[in-house]
């Protein structure tokens, strides 16, 4: 991995690369709490291939956003990364010093955080906010070069060049989210992590923003991790889907496989909790509540809500098993 991140002229780097771009190995994140450690990410491993779109789904509190932050080593106290490794290409990120990891953020892995469209600075024009990101990564440009660079970034996310001169309040929600994507891609990252990028948008705009993200990803030859809970969006956008429950990755499989033959009972229930437009009365909630992370049930954390739970599930934590290349499940019955 090049940590300089400044060769942004070539947009097609990595486009032909098909190996693993990001490897997460046995990642564990805990939050210290007076009543015990809250295990937000519990021994999660997965591989992201170049050009791949990977989804991470789960209920709130399942650890998906924490994992996105942990990949970038952005966990703040009382949270801490307890173990595991993250490799970007061949670089192990925990071996980097503060300055090197800071340069990996945005240049290597760009994060579009949850609610980022509302975190644009209200008193800065879009141009200045993009320039900020570049300057922070020591990209020194003349005024004319900056104007060209900004116009090009905006064009790539489907915005007109004039948007650079506008303030965030002058933009619609969809335009703000695109501006955030423009900032995210300004250093041509190899991986884009988008955390619920469209949860505040209307469906019509959501589709346009996801089309933009797909196009930008293709142009860059980047891989995408999409964090969210909308199984419809996952079904239409990602190549492979990981499902998280109580901090663990309980199933990961190619998207077609997971929606036609979900192996984990939780995945099955997550899919059937989505309201359909085909037939009324087909929407089923998942009974019970997500468990408290600092007080997980013994055995499989899902067993109190699981229709297939038996004595073994109540005592023995199911290991993650390989079913096929790129497909894993953690369930005694799958």
């Amino acid at each position, binding site marked *: 991995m090049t940590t300089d991140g400044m060769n942004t002229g070539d947009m097609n780097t990595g486009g032909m690369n098909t190996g693993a771009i990001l490897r997460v190995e046995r990642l564990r994140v805990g939050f210290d709490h007076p009543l015990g450690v809250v295990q937000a990410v519990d021994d999660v491993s997965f591989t992201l291939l170049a050009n791949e779109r990977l989804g991470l789904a789960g*209920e*709130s509190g399942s650890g998906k956003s924490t994992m996105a932050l942990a990949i970038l080593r952005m966990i703040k106290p009382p949270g801490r990364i307890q173990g595991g490794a993250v490799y970007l290409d061949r670089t192990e990120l925990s071996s980097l010093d503060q300055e090197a990891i800071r340069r990996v953020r945005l240049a290597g892995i760009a994060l579009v955080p949850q609610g980022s469209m509302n975190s644009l600075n209200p008193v800065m024009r879009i141009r200045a906010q993009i320039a900020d990101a570049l300057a922070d990564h020591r990209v020194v440009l003349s005024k004319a070069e900056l104007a060209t660079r900004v116009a090009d970034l905006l064009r790539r996310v*489907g*915005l*007109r060049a004039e948007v650079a001169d506008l303030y965030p309040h002058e933009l*619609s*929600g969809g*335009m703000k989210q695109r501006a955030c994507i423009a900032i995210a891609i300004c250093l041509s990252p190899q991986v884009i992590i988008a955390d619920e990028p469209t949860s505040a948008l*209307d*469906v*019509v*705009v*959501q*589709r*346009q923003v*996801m*089309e*933009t993200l*797909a*196009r930008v990803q293709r142009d860059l030859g980047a891989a995408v991790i999409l964090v969210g*809970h*909308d*199984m*419809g*969006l996952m*079904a*239409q*956008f990602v190549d492979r889907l990981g499902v998280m429950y109580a901090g663990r990755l309980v199933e990961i499989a190619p998207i*077609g496989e997971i*929606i*036609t033959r979900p192996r984990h009972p939780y995945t099955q*229930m*997550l*899919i059937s*909790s*989505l*309201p*359909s*437009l085909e037939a*009324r*009365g*087909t*929407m*089923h*909630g*998942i*009974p019970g*509540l*997500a468990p408290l992370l600092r007080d997980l049930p013994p055995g499989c954390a899902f067993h109190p809500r699981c229709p297939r739970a038996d004595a073994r599930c109540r005592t023995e934590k199911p290991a993650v098993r390989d079913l096929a290349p790129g497909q894993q499940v953690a369930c005694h019955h799958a």
Partner: protein
Amino acid sequence: MTTLMEIRHVTKRYGGGRLSGEGMTALSNLSMTIDADRPSITAVVGESGSGKTTLARILLGLTPPTEGEVLYRGQDLTSLSGEQRRNFRREVQAVFQDPYEVYNPFYRVDHVLNTPVNRFKLAASRAEGRELIANSLRAVGLRPEEILGRFPHQLSGGQRQRIMVARAVLMRPRLIVADEPVSMVDASLRATILGSLRKLTDEMGISIIYITHDLATAYQVSDNILVMYRACVAEAGAVERVVKDPRHPYTRLLISSIPKVSTTRDWLADEGDETIRPIPGRDGCRFVERCPVAMARCATAIPPLYRTEDHRATACFQFDTSPELAAAEMGQVLVGATAS
């Protein structure tokens, strides 16, 4: 048929006046009727800024309309007597979006349930009050022993939102106006909460206005639907008709934009970008510049609602051979709860 609530030709404008020009129209010439005898769930669906919440506030009497009338049991809301107003406040209840900010964190959740019991003298004794509260919690699928005595932070968002529904039920209302009641609740819990709303209509005869941006949950839970676009009703009618066979170009766009859980991946197209769209003046159809079938007259005149079928009305000039829908007829287009 007796009418519980009716709004006629209601328009709401914010701002405006002599100095600041035209202002912003949040709701334009909307009429609808809620039948007292046929309880039903009517979904109001639209994107942000389409006027959904303004409609909710007008129905709840929290905002007066700029033009038009809001009638409760035949009487204008502005001219209710003290006793009638009290009745209106009891019979028409609200459930809002955020199940976090409605609670005072210093009080146990019992507080939001005890207050209306005392204020509206719903119970003759404390024991009766407790019984009443326990029953309404059970009506929304909660176990009173797991809820009462707890503080808000000890409960999940889904539980808190169901307590808000229970609070509304406590008043034995005729109508609940629920503004995005499940948008802040996890997808896996939405079905349960919406299921308990459905039970209120089917078993207790409470009508519900379900305001949402989510067409799919609207389809699952409601009998009728009003699709709003920029302050106007685009299409209204029986939900099964509107969703399965949408007629208005906006309803079609909305339905095709929902990503489906399917192995057919046809959702992402790479078409041109729709970016900045000017908001049209008041003299044309508001959907005109996005509309694939727009005609010349769409830019110059606002299409009225045409009654294309018994239980459907569509505001689009494509259907101008159908009769125009009079304000008082909206009640006939909307259907009562279908026995399921």
